[in-house]
Every structure is written in structure tokens, then in C-alpha cells.
């Protein structure tokens, strides 16, 4: 031994079993924090990459900008790049065609594709006004390739171009069953001139990294007198960067912060709890050190070094599996595809690792201080006499009048050491709080993704212009092969409407029987049967701007309909939507043809059946294939579900492990006392009962505190993220509470079983002599 500090590794070797539990706790905490934070970081990066892919890299888009102002903005220091953009026929309802197929025309600067969006480009951007780029679907539809000549027909004449490349667009072309055409600003100007159209370009801006976008936008608005409606922000991307400004993002980040604090706390409690369990023994050890001449400073130094000695092994042992699990999780998600294909596989999350290391080292250092502090207060004689530590904490005698002595002692053991009780109850409660919070997040995830609604169609046929879809078309579609279900919606928008509450216009939609059935799962309040049975009753879809409630009467087209139910979601969620049966719809609007026909295919539908359906609608109605989008949303939902359930599982496992470990460590700390009790005549059954009562006391207190703190948080998450946007009211999460309480109870039972078994195996004399 070179110095007294050489005792640290020796002592670690001697107390290997006791230290093993402490080490395990630190490893688990560090692992958990690293894995969760890393996954969250990866998820954030993925979400950002996906947002950039879908919505572009631009920060803000300005409409009706003067050329001079735009140039000045382009010169600003905080602006990285700018680009002009214009579009013709974005609604695909004008007569612009390419090789007889509807075309959407984009007039953009080269910088738009290079800096503002993130589309895949093949070939080159048009060099001059006689070249164009097409969306990749043009290849299949019109069989053109780079270098081919194509003709664009416009209402005022045809113009020939050469294809210089292919480039995606935001999905408008595919969705509208059209071809997107990119051309430079001169070519676009020529087409506008030919068709006597006025250009309405928008000006895209991307700010430099690190610029406070919110401030920059406000400044820009003031400086150039921009109107609110002329400034469009890239909300998704800015939101993720923390400049969202929208309530949704503020709530989301707030709740994410709360959940992260919970995870951090779980790690802290676990380590602090494990160190607290053997505090009496450690105090005695430090007391003994003080007796033989160690100064307080030396003890403090010893404690810190001992803690760091644990961290030396436990922190890397927690961080490395944390990173591995993150990689595994990311790889699995990437394998699933959809938006997760942006997931970085071997990404290293500095935030994740730093949080893990931080939780490990800081908590251990803080938690290890406590025995040292206590040791300095213990008198040297008491420290070595064997009665130090365990005698000091007791302030009141156990009450043995009303219950059996082992029950009274069990309760007393649980409640007498206040710090231990607080730590145990907090960790029990924390597990419950986390479980409830994450189950609320799952509800939120569900409300985010509409395509998991059962009536989400694979194919949508929409009426074009003023010609609606007749019932015969619906029947004809129904007769086709491969069709599982077909249902039509009659729809009439912007009908002037009046009610006792402030509404100006409403959209009326018809649901068929199948959709009505589906709607039953979405009822917030009211009763659908009235809508079904009687004409004049409608449902409405909840949104922030819709004041209608059950019982309200709406007058439109000289008729009065009563709101019989409020739904959380519907086909249309914007403005005031009234949904009725087809009869009610016709009675209200006089219209009896469909605006939209929705088709669901059988799983094994053949490509020719889909083509047949396309052919059936072709020319008359617009067709959109939703299968890809639905599949992606489904995958996203299931992945989210898997993640949240995975997390719930981890939380549950921590609860189980923590409870078992804490009780086991508590038993270890009292083993000498238990040995003496056994010697005096306590049976194993009585001893087990005593430990069980202690565990049940922790579980019961933890359960009550956990529910008391977890339910308001659950309410808050549901209220802020779900109720506000979909109207679904908060309900007591009975199932989640039952599950977590069951887990807690099972853990408590297991927690008793393990140390009881260990005690049973030990000779009484060994327990008395155990140090």
C-alpha cells in the first residue's frame, strides 16, 4: 500500500458482492439515460432530415415581394441564400398538358433546387429557356428520357422543349396524377406572356445557421412592411429547430423536457437509493477510519475517489451498451423503411453520451457524500461498537399493540428511515409517473397519424370541376375485382350557415353506413343513432375554430339541422364540418351525387385490377393512389407504438429491478439484525412476512404518490397535445394504472422472494456475523 487511498481497490475487492449491486445500479442508470437520450437525439435528427426532405431547407417564403426589396433581403448578412419560385396549374384544373397528360409548371431559379428543397435530381438544371426538367413519374407515363424532345400544350399554344433531367417535386404531381415540369424563370415568363398571365412568384429565403430565425423574420416584416398573410414559414423545420412559435411545438418540447427530467431523475434515484441502502455500514467504515486518524478532508477525498472508482467501470459499461442499443434500434427502424430510412445507423449522440456520463458521475459523487458526512458526525466509539448507524436513525419505537410484531416491525422499517422512505417512494412513484406519461404520449402519437383510421382509402376518385360522380360509378367500381370496399361522400363546401354560436359557413358531408360505423369510435360527445335514424340530425368534427356542440341548431339553405354528436376527427377537420347520412345531405343541399369515391382494395389486389380502376375513372375524374402514404403512416404509427411500448417496457423493467434491488439491499443492510431475530426465535415465515410488509408499505406509498403526481401529468399531456387538437376528452387511464400497479405489486412480491431465499440459505450464525 502506497497511501491510504490504496485501500479503495482493496475494499472494493472485499465488498465485491455489495459493490456489485451498486455498480449494477449505476450501469443500468447510465445505460438507460444514454440509450433513451441517444434514441431521442437520433429520432430528432431523423425527423429533421425527413422534414427537410418533405418540406425543404428554406426558412421562410414571401409572397408579393418587390424585386428591389427581394434583392436587398438577399444581401442581408443573416440570409444564406434566396430563390424565386412560381407555379402554374398547381390544382391540375387548367389546360396545361405534356404529351396529353396534365402538367404542373414550376418556374424556379437554379438555387431553388440546390438550396431550398432537397429533391433528388437526375441530369441537369435547364441551361436555357428551351430546356425543362420533369418529375420522375413522366418516365413511366410518357416514356421520355433525358435529351428527348417534348411538347407542352398551353391554352394559347404549344411549345417544344428538350428534357435536361428529372427532379422530384413535393408530391403534388403524383397526388394530382400529373407531371411536374421545372423550367427556368425565362421559360416560365415566356409561357406566362403567351397565355397573358401575370406572374405571381414567391421568394424563398434560407437563413444562416445559428441565426435566431424568429427575430430575423420579425425584423424583416418590420423593415419591408410585409403583411402576415404574405409571410409563410417552413413550420415543420423551424419548429424542430425550436423556432416554431406554434403552440403545438412549444407543448411538445415542454413535455419532452418533462419526460427527460423524469428519466434523469429515475437514474439519479436509482443510484442514490442503492448507495443509501448500505449507508449504515459505510458510515461505520468511515467512522472507523476517523478513529484511526483519518481527517475529515481525507474521508471526503476517499469517498470521492471511491465513487470515481465505481464510475471508472460503471460509466463505460453503461454508455457502451447504450450506444449499441441505439445503433440496434436505429438499424431496425431503418430496415423498416418509410420515413425511418433517414435514421442514421452508426450515429453517435453526444447529448446521449454526455447525459449518461453526467448522470453517472454526478449522482454517484453526490450520493456518496452522504455517508462521509454522516461518518464525521458519528462518535469514534459508536462507529466501532457495532451499534452505530442503525441505532441513530430510530426516533420512535414501533407500535406493536395493534398488529403482530413482525407486521409492526415491517411497517416501522419502511417508514422510520425517512430518507430511505423518500427515495423508495420517489422511485416507485417515478416509475408510475413515467408509465402514465408515456402511455399519454402514445395517445398523442395515435392522434397525430390519421391514416390508421379504418376508413382510410387506398384509392380516391375525386370529381373534377362541376361534374360530380354518379351512384352508378360507385356500383360499377364495386363490381370490379380486387375491391374490398367502396364508399362515396357527397360534399358541399362553403355553404352560408347560421347558428346561435358564431359560424358563417359550413361544409356538409355525407357518410354512408360503413363510415358512420367507423365514426362511432371517434365520438367525443353525443349519439350517432339519431343521425342514422332521422333526417335533420348531423355530426360535427371538433376543431379549435368550431364552436358547435351537441344540441346546437344550424340553419342553412333555409333548413335547420341539429348537432347530435361531436367527433374527434373526420374526413375534413378544417372549418365547420357537418356530417349527415346521404338522405340528410340531399335534404340539406339538394345534391345527390358524390364528390369523392373512396376505395379499399383486398390485400392481394392484382396490378391489372388497379389499372382497370384507373381506366374506369380516367378522363372523367382525378385519381389518387394513397397506398404508399398509408403504408408509411402505418409503419410510422407502429414504430412509434413499438418505441413507446418499448420504453414503457424498459420503465416497467426498471421498476421491477429497482424494487427488487432496493428491498434486497435493505435486507442486506439489516441482515445482522435479522440474524439476531432468527436466533431469538423468529421463524423464516415471520421474517419473510416482515420483509413483505416493508415492501408492501413502499409499494402502497409509492402507488398513491405516483398516481397523485402521475395523473395530473397525464391529464396535462392529454389536454395539451390531444384534447386541444382533436377534442378527445381526458379520461382516467384505468388500464394503464392497473398495468403499472400490477407490475409494482409483482415486483414487490419478487422483491421479497429473492432476499428471503437468500436468508433461508444462510446459517443464522452467518447472518449475525455478516458485516
Amino acid at each position, binding site marked *: 500500500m502506497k497511501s491510504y487511498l490504496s485501500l479503495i481497490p482493496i475494499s472494493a475487492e472485499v465488498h465485491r458482492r455489495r459493490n456489485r449491486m451498486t455498480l449494477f445500479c449505476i450501469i443500468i442508470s447510465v445505460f438507460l439515460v444514454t440509450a433513451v437520450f441517444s434514441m431521442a437525439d437520433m429520432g430528432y435528427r431523423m425527423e429533421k432530415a425527413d422534414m427537410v426532405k418533405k418540406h425543404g431547407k428554406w426558412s421562410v417564403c414571401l409572397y408579393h415581394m418587390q424585386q428591389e426589396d427581394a434583392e436587398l433581403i438577399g444581401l442581408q448578412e443573416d440570409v444564406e441564400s434566396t430563390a424565386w419560385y412560381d407555379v402554374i396549374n398547381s390544382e391540375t384544373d387548367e389546360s396545361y398538358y405534356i404529351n396529353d397528360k396534365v402538367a404542373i409548371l414550376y418556374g424556379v431559379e437554379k438555387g431553388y433546387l440546390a438550396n431550398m428543397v432537397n429533391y433528388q435530381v437526375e441530369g441537369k438544371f435547364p441551361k436555357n429557356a428551351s430546356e425543362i426538367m420533369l418529375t420522375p413519374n413522366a418516365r413511366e407515363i410518357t416514356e421520355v428520357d433525358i435529351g428527348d424532345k417534348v411538347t407542352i400544350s398551353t391554352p394559347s399554344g404549344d411549345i417544344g422543349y428538350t428534357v435536361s433531367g428529372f427532379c422530384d417535386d413535393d408530391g403534388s404531381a403524383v397526388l394530382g396524377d400529373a407531371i411536374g415540369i421545372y423550367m427556368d424563370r425565362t421559360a416560365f415568363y415566356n409561357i406566362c406572356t403567351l397565355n397573358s398571365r401575370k406572374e405571381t412568384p414567391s421568394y424563398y429565403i434560407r437563413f444562416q445557421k445559428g441565426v435566431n430565425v424568429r427575430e430575423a423574420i420579425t425584423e424583416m416584416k418590420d423593415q419591408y412592411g410585409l403583411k402576415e398573410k404574405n409571410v409563410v414559414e417552413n413550420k415543420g423545420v423551424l419548429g424542430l429547430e425550436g423556432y416554431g412559435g406554434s403552440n403545438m411545438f412549444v407543448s411538445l418540447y415542454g413535455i419532452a423536457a418533462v419526460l427527460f427530467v423524469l428519466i434523469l431523475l429515475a437514474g439519479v434515484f436509482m443510484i442514490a437509493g442503492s448507495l443509501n441502502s448500505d449507508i449504515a455500514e459505510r458510515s461505520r467504515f468511515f467512522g472507523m477510519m476517523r478513529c484511526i486518524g483519518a481527517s475529515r478532508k481525507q474521508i471526503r477525498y476517499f469517498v470521492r475517489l471511491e465513487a470515481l472508482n465505481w464510475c471508472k467501470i460503471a460509466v463505460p459499461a453503461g454508455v457502451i451498451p447504450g450506444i449499441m442499443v441505439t445503433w440496434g434500434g436505429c438499424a431496425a427502424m431503418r430496415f423498416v423503411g418509410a420515413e425511418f430510412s433517414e435514421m442514421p445507423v452508426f450515429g453517435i449522440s453526444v447529448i446521449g453520451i454526455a447525459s449518461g456520463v453526467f448522470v453517472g458521475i454526478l449522482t454517484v459523487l453526490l450520493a456518496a457524500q452522504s455517508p462521509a458526512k454522516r461518518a464525521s458526525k458519528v462518535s469514534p466509539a459508536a462507529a466501532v461498537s457495532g451499534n452505530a448507524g442503525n441505532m441513530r436513525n430510530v426516533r420512535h419505537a414501533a407500535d406493536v399493540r395493534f398488529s403482530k410484531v413482525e407486521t409492526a416491525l415491517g411497517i416501522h422499517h419502511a417508514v422510520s428511515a425517512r430518507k430511505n422512505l423518500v427515495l423508495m417512494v420517489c422511485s416507485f412513484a417515478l416509475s408510475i409517473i413515467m408509465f402514465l406519461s408515456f402511455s399519454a404520449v402514445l395517445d398523442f402519437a395515435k392522434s397525430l397519424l390519421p391514416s390508421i383510421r379504418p376508413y382510410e382509402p387506398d384509392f380516391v376518385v375525386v370529381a373534377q370541376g362541376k361534374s360530380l360522380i354518379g351512384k352508378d360509378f360507385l356500383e360499377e367500381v364495386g363490381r370490379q375485382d380486387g375491391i374490398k370496399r367502396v364508399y362515396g361522400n357527397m360534399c358541399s363546401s362553403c355553404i352560408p350557415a347560421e347558428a346561435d354560436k358564431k359560424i358563417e359557413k359550413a361544409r356538409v358531408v355525407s357518410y354512408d353506413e360503413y363510415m358512420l360505423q367507423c365514426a362511432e369510435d371517434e365520438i367525443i360527445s353525443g349519439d350517432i343513432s339519431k343521425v342514422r335514424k332521422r333526417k335533420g340530425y348531423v355530426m360535427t368534427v371538433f376543431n379549435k375554430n368550431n364552436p358547435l356542440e351537441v344540441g346546437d341548431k344550424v340553419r342553412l339553405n333555409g333548413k335547420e339541422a341539429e348537432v347530435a354528436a361531436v367527433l374527434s376527427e373526420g374526413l375534413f377537420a378544417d372549418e365547420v364540418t357537418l356530417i349527415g347520412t346521404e338522405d340528410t345531405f340531399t335534404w340539406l343541399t339538394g345534391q345527390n351525387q358524390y364528390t369523392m369515391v373512396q376505395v379499399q382494395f383486398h390485400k392481394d389486389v392484382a396490378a391489372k385490377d388497379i389499372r382497370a380502376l384507373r381506366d374506369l375513372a380516367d378522363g372523367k375524374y382525378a385519381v389518387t393512389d394513397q397506398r404508399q402514404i398509408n403504408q408509411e403512416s402505418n409503419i410510422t404509427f407502429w414504430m412509434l407504438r413499438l418505441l413507446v411500448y418499448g420504453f414503457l417496457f424498459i420503465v416497467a423493467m426498471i421498476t421491477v429491478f429497482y424494487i427488487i434491488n432496493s428491498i434486497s439491499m435493505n435486507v442486506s443492510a439489516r441482515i445482522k439484525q435479522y440474524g439476531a431475530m432468527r436466533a431469538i426465535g423468529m421463524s423464516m415465515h415471520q421474517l419473510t412476512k416482515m420483509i413483505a410488509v416493508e415492501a408492501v408499505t413502499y409499494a402502497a406509498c409509492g402507488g398513491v404518490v405516483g398516481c397523485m403526481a402521475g395523473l395530473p401529468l397525464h391529464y396535462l399531456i392529454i389536454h395539451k397535445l390531444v384534447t386541444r387538437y382533436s377534442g378527445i376528452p381526458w379520461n382516467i387511464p384505468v388500464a394503464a394504472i392497473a398495468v403499472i400497479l400490477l407490475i409494482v405489486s409483482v415486483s414487490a412480491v419478487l422483491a421479497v422472494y429473492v432476499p428471503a431465499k437468500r436468508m433461508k440459505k444462510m446459517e443464522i450464525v452467518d447472518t*449475525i456475523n455478516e458485516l
Partner: protein
Amino acid sequence: MDLLEVRSISKTYGSGEAAVHALKEVSFSVPKGEFVAVVGESGSGKSTLLNMMGALDTATSGRVFIDGKDIFAMDDSKLTVFRRRNIGFIFQAFNLIPELNVEQNIMFPVLLDYQKPDKRYLEELLSVLNLKERRHHLPGQLSGGQQQRVAIGRALMTRPSLILADEPTGNLDSKNSSEVIALLKETSKIYEQTIIMITHNQSIAQSADRILSVSDGVITDLGGAANEKLS
């Protein structure tokens, strides 16, 4: 009649070359009401012997009879009840239950038996042990001597026939030591109990009816007018 009979008890810790023979074929018997002191150097095996007599540890071979009953033949639950009712333990480190007050600590074995404590006997013990005024104190509020008196009270509460004391005065000063020993002697006389006490202190040992000497796992002196065969 012999209350305790130890028959060819051996205890070996470990195996092979690392084997330590703590007790080697020890045999002796103690009649009812006798106060026996066990002396010997540290590591001689006296504590092991005491643990065997109290069935706190299992022997490698041999048997122990208390009141004619083979305690090693009992299963754990029977043994627990037997120990609770027939043997009183007094430890060097007192081993009181810190959560229970003086009175509760003394009553503890009776409470474990789900019996109603004999209040008169409790009062008597408290007064003999001079703990009446401290009855509601917790062990942490007592001196070492007081704590050991509580431990004695606890050992006597079930009126056991055998009291096993492992250096009961080891943590006490000489004044407290002689008080505790006097008390033990007195109570054993009053309640006709057999006491086996380990001690390092020769003068305390002298106050016993008989002194057993243990050395290197073997009894070297049976003391008194014993007629047992030396092991």
C-alpha cells in the same frame, strides 16, 4: 438430570487443504441449573461450540440434546419454535432491535410466539434488571450496560431452560460487567436456569459453578467434579 448433552460434535469449515477444524469430537453434558463458563483463547472454537448448542449453525457431525431432544433432528420451523421457547441468547454486541423500546425488546420472543406477555413477570424482570425507569427508552438511548441488561431480560422472558451467553460483558466496563454477571447468577438461581457463558475474563469465569476450557477445537478441562470423558 442433564439439561444439555453435547455428543461428539465436530465442525469443519472449508475442505481439502484449506479445511479448518473448529471443533473436534467435543462431548460433555450440563445438569439443570448449573452456571458454566467457557474459556479459551481467541479462535479456540468456543463461539462455534456455543452456536452449535443454540442450533445457530449446523455441525459437521455429532448431536446436541436439550432436555432430551435432539435439536439437529428438528426441521427449521420446529427448531425456531424450540429455540424461541427453550433457549435464551445473550450476545456480546447486544443485538437489540433498534426499533423497539426496552419493554418491547424484552417481550419480543413472546410476541413472536403470538402469546400475551406475562405482565407480572415483565414487571418483575424490569425491576430485577433495574430498567423500570427506562422501559420506554429505545436501545439507542441506553448505555452499554443497560443495553446488555435488556438483552438479559429478553433472554429470560420466555423462562427458557438454557441461556447461552457469548461474552456478555465483552463490551462493558468492569463495574457493569460484575453487575451483569451477578444478575445472571441471581436470575438463574431464581428461575432455575442453566447458563453457558463464554468469557475471556478469568475473574468472571471464577464466579461460575464450573469452567470449561477449550483449546484448538478440543475441550481440555471439564472443570469441577465432572465425570465426562475428555474429547
